[in-house]
């Protein structure tokens, strides 16, 4: 099984175990599982960006509070998760729309810095409120997918083993369903047409009678819902839940969005996958790169891509009239 023993050479700085097929496949699976969560975060970043041109730094925290709500309803009150999770998603969509209307929209006219500051402020507020209400200690989250040690398909046996957890497959299916539903909503409904019209040209959209403000609220609502879903999935994946759950995930999500292009939905999915893969493969491949540098590595890749394509892989370059 171990290819390296058959190789006549050893590469300095490269992890020997990397030449084992099962090990590599396991890393790829882990990377793609995390990548799917990052892709969901990137999706919510993209949905907000397309109509408003803003980044919501509080996106991850909004997801965390939704996830903590699910925990309170399901674990502490015993409501089944198939009620609590949709309820939390619906609630966070309402909250997202309300936040857009009350805090973001009034500031929007005053330039980009104002919105950045408002979302940073929201980030701090929600994070602190989470810590006060739910405490700082991690809890065991709700698990919508089977997550016992044995719940997995063993594909290649023998040490090291290559297996895929049911929950990992669940995350992938969820991502596919979300992207599918988004596609249906945006391409096949009147509402989605309005959203796309506002994204393409707000003034013209207003002129033909599309309620622009409501479309902006729709963007925030969709993003908040997807963010909460991402938080629930991520807490299931890590098996522990606290108020800092999404602190790193939002950054990976932003990075994925930048990589794919802030205005591209397929870009968000591809960006998430790439960021997840880089995060899991690069530190494992080079023995001199510690896992704490995985974020740095992911960012280096993004900077490299942006230097070649400043608008991201799938993003449209902005054409400016002189």
């Amino acid at each position: 099984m171990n290819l390296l023993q058959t190789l006549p050479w050893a590469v300095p700085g490269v992890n020997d175990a990397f030449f084992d097929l099962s090990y590599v496949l396991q890393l790829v699976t882990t990377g793609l599982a995390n990548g799917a969560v990052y892709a969901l975060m990137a999706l919510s970043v993209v949905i907000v960006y397309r109509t408003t041109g803003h980044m919501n730094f509080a996106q991850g925290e909004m997801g965390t509070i939704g996830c903590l709500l699910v925990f309170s309803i399901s674990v502490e009150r015993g409501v089944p998760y198939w009620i609590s999770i949709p309820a939390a998603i619906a609630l966070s969509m309402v909250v997202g729309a309300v936040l857009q209307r009350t805090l973001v929209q009034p500031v929007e006219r005053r330039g980009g810095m104002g919105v950045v500051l408002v979302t940073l402020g929201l980030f701090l507020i929600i994070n602190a409120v989470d810590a006060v209400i739910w405490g700082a200690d991690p809890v065991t989250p709700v698990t919508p997918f089977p997550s016992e040690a044995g719940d997995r398909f063993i594909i290649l046996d023998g040490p090291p083993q290559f297996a895929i957890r049911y929950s990992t497959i669940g995350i992938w299916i969820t991502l596919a369903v979300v992207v599918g539903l988004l596609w249906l909503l945006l391409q096949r409904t009147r509402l989605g047409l309005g959203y796309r019209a506002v994204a393409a040209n707000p003034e013209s959209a207003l002129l033909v009678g599309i309620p622009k403000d409501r479309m902006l609220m729709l963007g925030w609502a969709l993003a908040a819902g997807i963010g909460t879903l991402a938080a629930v999935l991520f807490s299931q994946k890590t098996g522990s839940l606290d108020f800092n759950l999404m602190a790193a995930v939002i950054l990976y999500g932003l990075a994925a969005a930048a990589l794919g292009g802030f205005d591209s939905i397929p870009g968000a999915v591809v960006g998430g996958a790439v960021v997840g893969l880089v995060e899991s493969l690069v530190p494992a491949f080079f023995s001199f790169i510690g896992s704490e540098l995985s974020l740095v590595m992911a960012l280096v890749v993004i900077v490299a891509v942006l230097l070649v394509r400043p608008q991201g892989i799938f993003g449209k370059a902005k054409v400016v009239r002189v």
Partner: protein
Amino acid sequence: MTTRTIQHGSTEHRIWQVLLYGGIAAVVLAIALTQPDYRMAQFSAVAAWSVALLGMNLIIGYGGQMALGHSAFFGFGSYLTAILYADYGVSFVGTLPISALAGAAIGFLLGLPALRISGLYLALVTLALALAFPAIAKMDQLSALTGGANGKLAYIQWLPPTWLPFTVTSAAWVFLTLSAFAAVLFLLASNAMRSRVGRAVVALRDNQIGAAVSGVHPATWKTSTFAVSAAYASLAGSLMMLAVPIVTPDSGGFLVAVTLITGMVIGGAGTISGAVIGGVAVVWLPELSKHWAGALPLVSESDGTALSTAVYGAVLILVVFVMPGGVVTFVRRLRARFVVVVPQVPATSPPVAHAAPLSPTPELEMERP
């Protein structure tokens, strides 16, 4: 109420300027002579922060490049001074030019990719720099230099000299020294921004193509702005070592980056004096919000500490709503109701009517076909 008109550069204007700067110097001296030592450390931190905020202001406020990760340069400067002072025996003042030059060099190199990336992408990439900084500082390969996760200690000996006409504590002397350094750096930046240099930088921000047509080479000026602002941030980090003798990996991390952004916006982006106000806000806003959080009803002691972050966030949002241009812009608007300073008209040009100088720019967006 009648507004008073003062001509720029007239004797009256000069007198007001001298009074203002004299007043600031008097306040600094009064603080040094009267405040207790623990307060002095905070005032010293204000001086160091304001230099970093000035650096942020040069690149974001004046240059219009969304470089949000200047905390990395700040942390870099702190580490450089700590390592040079503690391990290589370089004097504190000796570390400053090294820190400035090294910061400028790194800023120049990072300014090169920034030429291709702009807007939110640049914001994200530079924020990534702030995120990467703690991880790099903690790296095992560097821990001999940086002290790993525990950070680096450097107690810098800084005693008041004997030639001083008054006696101050050494903490007060630290404050006076930092204020003097900050004053020089502020003067440099203020003069540069009011001259040809500043006009070029602002022109690039407002209309890059127009500026390029007028002979401002975008690549040269943008990278130079990046380098200078990085040098300021790095110097600020070095100066901070005098006020706070420890630097940790998180000194250059995400939270410091957020602190710098908020400080800059509270003070006022694109203003020189806003950096000082931002420095004051950065030092005392967390403390005040802790105080306010403790005063909230139905809040226990431990929750109050956690809630102080929430109050901090709420204050931020409030500032954006009430004073969108920062404190300085707010004060200027207020001042413009009483006093208007008009620029001197050159003798050769025909006299112009004094238009209201703060009238908003006309909306040109709708004129396009």
